[in-house]
């Protein structure tokens, strides 16, 4: 049983560019959350998608946007990249409301 799959695993982008990260949730899970983990910090909640709508949002600027598709997979888009956006981006899926979160291995984004 495949868990949460994220792609790509590593990415290097230039300041000002745009990036799209992808996530396929664990089978049977319909809710996807995105987290940003800066070096030496704990993951910080970006937003959560359920039934193709953003259900909750953390304290991140509008440059961060997302999408959920009918098959429950999700994308995280970041526009106008800043050096400070360099981090590990984690996707977590869960079965609707509840705490059965499964995390992916993350995408390491480096902005130069």
């Amino acid at each position, binding site marked *: 049983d495949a868990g*949460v799959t994220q792609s790509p695993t590593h990415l290097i982008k230039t300041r000002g560019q745009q990036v799209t990260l992808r996530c396929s949730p664990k089978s049977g899970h319909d*809710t996807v*959350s995105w*987290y940003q983990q800066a070096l*030496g*910090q*704990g*993951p*910080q*909640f970006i937003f*959560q998608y359920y039934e193709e709508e953003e*259900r*909750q949002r*953390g304290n991140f600027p509008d440059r961060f946007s997302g999408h959920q598709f009918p098959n429950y997979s999700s994308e995280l888009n970041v526009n106008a990249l800043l050096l400070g956006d360099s981090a590990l981006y*984690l996707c*977590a899926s*869960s079965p609707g*409301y*509840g*705490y*059965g*979160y*499964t*995390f*992916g*291995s*993350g995408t390491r984004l480096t902005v130069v």
Partner: protein
Amino acid sequence: DQQVKQNSPSLSVQEGRISILNCDYTNSMFDYFLWYKKYPAEGPTFLISISSIKDKNEDGRFTVFLNKSAKHLSLHIVPSQPGDSAVYFCAASAPAGGTSYGKLTFGQGTILTVHP
């Protein structure tokens, strides 16, 4: 505003001894708490959780204690094994109806090293 804090960046213990990882929180609306373990190049893996209606939950070598009055929780690992060496995160969430439901608020993590 750091609502969940792990004040010890690192902890070193001998194999076979007890590891105690601590976590403090400030938001009294939190009612569910989780511990995750993270190895390098992997995502966090769920370890154990506790609801605020309990003060203790056990799962094998892992026990989580919750002291609501002190807004403090701890994870005990007994006996510690070298394979337990990882970064441990505590996380908290608020109940349904609140704006934080489903969102996890994480601490900064504690690096546990278990020496053979």
